[in-house]
């Protein structure tokens, strides 16, 4: 600090300003660490509970259908459903482990800010670019098996199966396209960062690149699929007019309605967290 430096007084004011917060203590840090770990534990527990419930539904459907569900064309449907649930579990695991900003304690201190930011952008870009392999394709073996099994056992609902497959294909394309566009935005940010680090953080944000809606839609679709399968025959008589429809159309209405409820619940949950 030289006396003739016109900013010396500002730096003194800056460094001598009164503290607005009481000093953070080690006990507070430990308490926060426990809260963070408890939050992660709660989230994992919720997913495990959802997984167990889904498995119970599958088991319940299997038990109620008796041995018939585990032989002939029905075997394909049952195995397909299990594969579908495993695919969903895999996607959720990938989302949790790779989908959010994460900072390993060591990297925070060994990496300068520009390199740290670049590494995060590269990770996000690669995640978005590979959305087919970890987000979409894991769902298809189960769906394909189920579709084949249903078609063999009951050719009369071929229209319903075709509609569901078309819906799944359209959603997959929409998800892949949205995320590919997100990857391009992130790549532009990486290019900008490499050209001029100072401008990197001034870019317009691409909101959440892994689009919220695509996650809601896909998760809701599969929950609705499982829910419709487990409880569809109980729901149809409860809704006026639904039992007058043909079986494929009624099934489609149930699945779409459950899916809509799923998307709305996700949106409400997201909005409530965003306000905090």
């Amino acid at each position: 600090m030289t006396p003739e430096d016109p900013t010396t007084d500002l730096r003194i004011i800056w460094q001598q300003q009164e503290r607005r917060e009481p000093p953070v203590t080690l006990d507070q840090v430990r308490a926060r660490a426990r809260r963070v770990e408890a939050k992660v534990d709660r989230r994992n527990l919720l997913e495990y509970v959802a997984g167990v419930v889904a498995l119970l539904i599958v088991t319940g459907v299997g038990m109620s259908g008796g041995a018939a569900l585990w032989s002939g064309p029905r075997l394909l449907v049952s195995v397909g459903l299990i594969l579908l649930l495993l695919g969903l579990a895999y996607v959720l695991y990938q989302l949790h482990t790779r989908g959010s900003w994460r900072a390993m304690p060591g990297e925070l201190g060994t990496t300068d800010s520009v390199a740290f930011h670049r590494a995060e952008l590269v990770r996000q870009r690669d995640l978005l670019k590979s959305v087919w392999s970890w987000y979409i394709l894991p769902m298809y073996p189960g769906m394909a098996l189920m579709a084949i099994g249903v078609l063999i056992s009951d050719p009369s609902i071929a229209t319903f199966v075709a509609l569901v497959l078309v819906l799944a294909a359209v959603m997959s394309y929409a998800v892949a396209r949205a995320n590919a566009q997100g990857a391009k935005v992130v790549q532009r940010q990486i290019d900008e960062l490499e050209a001029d680090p100072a401008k990197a953080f001034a870019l317009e944000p691409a909101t959440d690149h892994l689009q919220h809606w695509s996650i809601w839609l896909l998760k809701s679709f599969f929950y609705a699929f499982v829910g419709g399968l487990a409880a569809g025959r109980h729901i149809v008589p409860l809704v006026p007019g639904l039992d007058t429809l043909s079986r494929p159309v009624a099934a489609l209405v149930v699945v779409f309605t459950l899916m809509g409820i799923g998307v709305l619940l996700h949106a409400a949950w997201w909005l409530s967290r965003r306000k905090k």
Partner: protein
Amino acid sequence: MAAPTADQDALYGRLAASYGAALERLAGGYESDSDKRRDLLQDIHLALWRSLDHFAGRCSLRTWVYRVAHNTAISHISRRRARAPALVSLDEVATLADGGDAASALDRRLALDRLYTLVQRLTVVDRQVILLYLEDLDAASIGEIVGLSPSNVATKVHRIKEVLSHRFHGRTR
């Protein structure tokens, strides 16, 4: 994660005592809202405490502390960037009206408020440079933390002095 050792706790205690005030000022440079600022400050302390297990002495402890703090702050603001106002560079901020009042700016508190407002509007790299400059770090140390060359930092520091002089010189004494 391995449980923090007693040495790690002791080192954290020393660093919190030495850099606690600077970390609070740093958090203020990223968050104007008092609750969010407190939240960020606690996140920084938690990250610092956890990080010390990985400290191998390849840089100074001061560099380590500031890297952890700024990288934690980047993660923090990146999670909510979609709602943040547009950020501007040092060159752009020089052309903006500062909304200050020459008479009232004599007050140190107001000068500080205006300084925080200016810092929070800057792009992240410019913000990091100015925050570290205000803490009296030299260009080489700033470069090591931010990831810019010392000459690049020197150019930015020169620009910072111009902007600060233009906005505050003669008003804060």
